[in-house]
């Protein structure tokens, strides 16, 4: 099954829509709650990243009997130094974003930790794409 969600930059009120929808479906498929939890943590973090740092993005999810593959593709500033962004605690978030309780680092290490398989591609001035995969 293929799903697609649009994400708008700056709209924190709607952030979490994709993760909520996917969570609901995985639960209805009786996927192990431990896996569901890891999917939700990583996806929510990545979704908020698009809202906080990019202009807009598209999340696609592909669910089959063997697992779920997530792709988060954004149009945004891109990440100049991926290695640095993967360091726990590193953050470029604005004061405004931090005040809302977001932006304590991009959470990329957290996403990677909660994924079975994680890949990131980024081009400065164009955008960033994350691939997050899980096996059931």
């Amino acid at each position, binding site marked *: *099954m293929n799903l697609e969600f649009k994400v708008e930059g700056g709209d924190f009120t709607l952030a*979490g829509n994709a*993760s*909520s929808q996917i*969570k609901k*479906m995985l*639960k*209805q*498929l*009786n*996927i192990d*709650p*431990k896996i*569901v*939890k890891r999917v*939700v*943590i990583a996806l*929510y973090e990545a979704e908020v990243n698009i809202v906080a740092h990019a202009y807009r993005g598209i999340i696609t999810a592909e*669910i*089959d*009997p063997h697992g779920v593959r997530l792709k988060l593709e954004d149009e945004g500033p891109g990440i100049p130094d991926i290695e640095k962004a993967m360091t726990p605690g590193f953050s470029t978030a604005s004061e405004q974003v931090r005040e809302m309780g977001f932006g304590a680092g991009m959470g990329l290490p957290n996403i990677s930790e909660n994924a079975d398989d994680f890949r990131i591609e980024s081009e400065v001035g164009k955008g960033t794409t994350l691939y997050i995969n899980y096996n*059931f």
Partner: protein
Amino acid sequence: MSSTTYNRALEILNDVCIGCSHCMKVCPTEALRVTAGKAKIHVDWCIDCGECYRICPNRAIRVMDDDFKQIFKYKRRVLLVPSVFYAQFDDSVPRERIYEIIGELGFTEVCAVEQSVDTLLKEEREYVKNSDEPVISSFCPAVIRLIQVRFPSLVDKIMTLLPPLEITAQYYKRKHEQEGGNPDDLGLFYLTPCIGKIAAVKSPVGGYNSPITGVINMDYFFNKVFLAYKQRIPITTSVKVNSEISSKGVLYPTTGGEAAHIEGRTLAIDGMANVIDFLEMMENEDIEGVDFLELRACDESCAGGILSHRNRFLTAEAMRKFASQTSDTHKLVDEYKRFTSAVIHMEQIEPRSMVKYDWNIEIALEKMEKARELKDLFPGIDCGACGAPSCEALAEDIAKGQGEISSCIFLRTLYEKRGELGVDEAVKIMEKIWGDSRFNKV
């Protein structure tokens, strides 16, 4: 729809049900459907919250409580009375008189359920201190069942301590046995303001067997007591009253009455919709740094219990008033500590899957995909005219082979316009969902 051991608390009376679908609209797990003019419960999905019972305008939902007469099978008949019961009466009804009437109705002893709260709170504080946050209170049985069914990933957050009722019952049982009483003589009856508690006593979670003999419906019993009061029945028997309770005990079943005594950052949330909202957030790991959560399915907690007769705000007010006149400890606290030793721990609570589509993931995925396609066909106004609570629920039912596309009144009108469906057929479909008798009126 097969029956399982899960649901024991609610039953729909087919003869009384008029299929008005009010219950279907309020069920938090979408466990109800209307077919042939009658509501049907999907028992595996029911969490015994009683929202359907509360809203039913026709009293067609029966609470599976115990037959009152069974109390007379026991020589020593103890009624465990929750503080919310006395708050059903206004101030003009003296408590002594209520005790007398309870005795006259057949009980030999009256006891305060929340007698064990002081001991329990001490254990709760220790438990919360030594556990990973957040700890979810195990007090509300509807919340436990809601988590089992809808939030299985959170079951390990539920505190594995027994609620006050069970501890008080343990105390009585042990004391009875210690005093040399014959175990067969003791009947411990719980007067319940809550439907979930009936299921909790009949089929407890967490590998625990309750010492409680039976459950008495508080709504039923209130009427019995109040009638006796109004008719001024003569008192011919005596009743032993063990009403020891602290202000903490009185307030424990009200909103905030538990959380107030736990150290750290605590939240008290009442009302089914509020609890569900919060659990969704918790499941997304959106909540950080909260040590303890008091979650109660009913608005105003047990004061708004399904079997509570009086307005919930007046009931809660009466409980607060009584608490303000009560000491913050009582003389049995030490004895409780001795007899119940430590609080009895439950085993881990198991998740309970709703099995939405199928256990086989390939089949489940196929059905889910079909349901998504169907959902897009429907108008999305969740009118319920199909006999399902929402367009999404109908789509799911059809995908599972338990529903028809033509059940949708919008699509049916379209099919009629296109000439694909005759008027007679359309009426037949309506009758199939809502029953023939509905259409005989005009």
